[in-house]
């Protein structure tokens, strides 16, 4: 959804969100969530707009953005692959699954591929421990995985 909006439209929406939250206590976090959703990241030029509107120093905003893992400075790839590294998944072998995906895509963990198609991350527990080990690719969830299933799952997205 976010992709269809032009840069100007995103900034317009951001300003709307700023208007809604401005004045209420603790306004920064909800605005950052909105920015992350709109732009797919919270880059510096977006932070500057927020800084001006809320009269919060840019350094402080940068500090908050880099503190929380939900906010990123650069947008993720078209497909965000998250391998759950919660304890339940880990003891059931999510480590080798992460290695395998990294190897199949030739993509180190926590990076985005050159063509912008995939971002591979190890995520915190997503709370689907009953399905361990679990990976998510955007909104799709794949549970009770074995390493052998990885290539066929990835193929769907590589060819998408």
């Amino acid at each position, binding site marked *: 959804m976010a992709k269809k909006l032009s840069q100007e439209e995103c900034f317009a929406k951001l300003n709307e969100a700023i208007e809604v939250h401005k004045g209420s206590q603790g306004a920064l976090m909800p605005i950052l969530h909105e920015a992350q959703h709109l732009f797919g990241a919270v880059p510096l030029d977006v932070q500057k707009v927020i800084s001006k509107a809320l009269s919060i120093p840019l350094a402080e905003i940068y500090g908050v953005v880099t*503190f929380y893992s939900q906010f990123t400075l650069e947008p993720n790839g078209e497909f965000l692959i998250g391998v759950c590294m919660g304890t339940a998944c*880990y003891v*059931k072998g999510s480590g080798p699954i992460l290695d395998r995906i990294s190897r199949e895509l030739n993509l180190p963990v926590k990076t985005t591929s050159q063509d912008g198609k995939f971002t591979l991350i190890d995520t915190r527990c997503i709370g689907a421990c*009953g*399905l361990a080990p679990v990976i998510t690719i955007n909104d799709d969830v794949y*549970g009770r995985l074995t390493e052998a299933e990885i290539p066929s799952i990835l193929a769907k997205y590589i060819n998408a």
Partner: protein
Amino acid sequence: MELYRSHVLICGGTGCSSSGSLTFEDKFAAAMAKHDLNKEVKLVKTGCFGLCEAGPIVVVYPEGAFYSRVTDEDITKIVEEHLLKGRIVKGLLHGSAIDEEVTKSINEVDFFKKQKRVALRNCGIINPENIEEYIAFDGYQALGKALTEMTREEVIEVVKASGLRGRGGGGFPTGLKWTFAYNAQSEKKYVACNADEGDPGAFMDRSVLEGDPHVIIEAMAIAAYAIGADEGYVYIRAEYPIAVKRLEIAIEQAKEMGLLGKNIFGTDFNFDLKIKLGAGAFVCGEETALIASIEGERGMPRPRPPFPANKGIFGQPTVLNNVETYANVPQIILNGAEWFANIGTERSKGTKVFALGGKINNTGLLEIPMGTTLREVIFDIGGGIPNGKAFKAVQTGGPSGGCITAEHLDTPIDYDNLIELGSMMGSGGMIVMDEDNCMVDVARFFLDFTVDESCGKCTPCREGTKRMLEMLDKICEGKGTMQDIEDLEQLAYTIKDASLCGLGQTAPNPVLSTLKYFKHEYLAHVEDKKCPAGVCKDLLAITITDKCIGCTMCKTVCPVNCISGEKKGQHVIDQDACIKCGACIDKCPVKCIVKK
């Protein structure tokens, strides 16, 4: 009111919805429409049933037929056989729901039989997106009782007398916390709910919010009345979109019915509730860090005192409780302190929800009276270890807890017993490990987590955990020395003593407890350069035995081309190039490739 002859309960919890259960409602409706059943059978999308292992779960009442791992094709069968002809489809029932051709209702199944549900009482029973269903199950009665029949002091007295302790990890007496906030002098006070469930392997708070969100609203309103607050915040992980959505719906519905807002139940009590989204920082589960995050800052803890009860959100007195703690409150108000205090052990009252995961047959969420033994949980309710493997340890308390070994399985679970064993209750994650798990690797896993999540404010936690991780990495790579083990232990105690908040104070626990119970595994890594469980890659060698038939399958599958050999001849792995991925082991048709 319309009457239905059957109810079909479809689990809409995270586990089941990940396997597609959210589409089931429409599919059932479509299949039922063909037989004109929509007026006779009611579909209910509920919260989590708990036995996530068996998901997607569908339960049909009045029989209580427990269908597990339901697929799209199964839906047609259930509609045509069960709903139309009244015959339970035995082949689709969960294995434990059928005993020599005799079907059991879901409540008679071993997993559910031993449980006692207080916090989870409505999960998997009501539709969480419908306030009327909550009200039909005594919802908002406790709030009504508190506001119209009890004084603020009486409410606090009941919670105190019940013996309820914080379910988020610390186990602080809830009534006492409320008293502090009640006594604090201020025009403005807040109540807050900690739904920043960051403990890996624990998902009870999520299940309560997804399955019964109104109970949190009701309990927070009761707490607000008791301490004299008129505003509340639920701080919830952004990673839990379904929980956020259902809570939003619940708050809207409560507002429409006048259960939130001004003059609730015709009294002069006003209460407004807002949601604040977390943004992925484990340390925000610590109360002062959570408050900083609500205020829009980096979620970093600050020294206490002052405690939040005196100086909390925006500097005002604040009561902050965990989701599961709140979920107990309405039942305590309705049934009385004595009822609650009669459940559990002397110093730990009531029930506790555990998220059972890892190497266990029945993965899922369960609620048991305090004092139940670990053995009952793991073997009776959890169904034991899969694939005939041996039980090694159970990890409780997440990154702050420790491991408990087989010899302590008969310990009754309560706050104090677990601490005595070198672990802790934590939020209730319970991860079972078998002989294939390396305990040094597990300790390293948790340290890796804390290093990543340490906020960096205090030196012992920021630098200390990092040094501990380096030592553990060394040991797992086979480069460790005896001095490392000694240093590890000493540093662990220093970090425990000197860290600012709970995260640092408990971060060394996984190392200390594995050192206590599994020192021999550390020694094997250091002295023999061996990983007994075969997990630590650098200490493994993958070799091809002389049973090799020379089929070349391993050679084709090897991602780094480190296997050589002629067709029909013995194959050999180049140990220097091997990355120990194990792909060849899976591929070998005669199982002649071994890891040791």
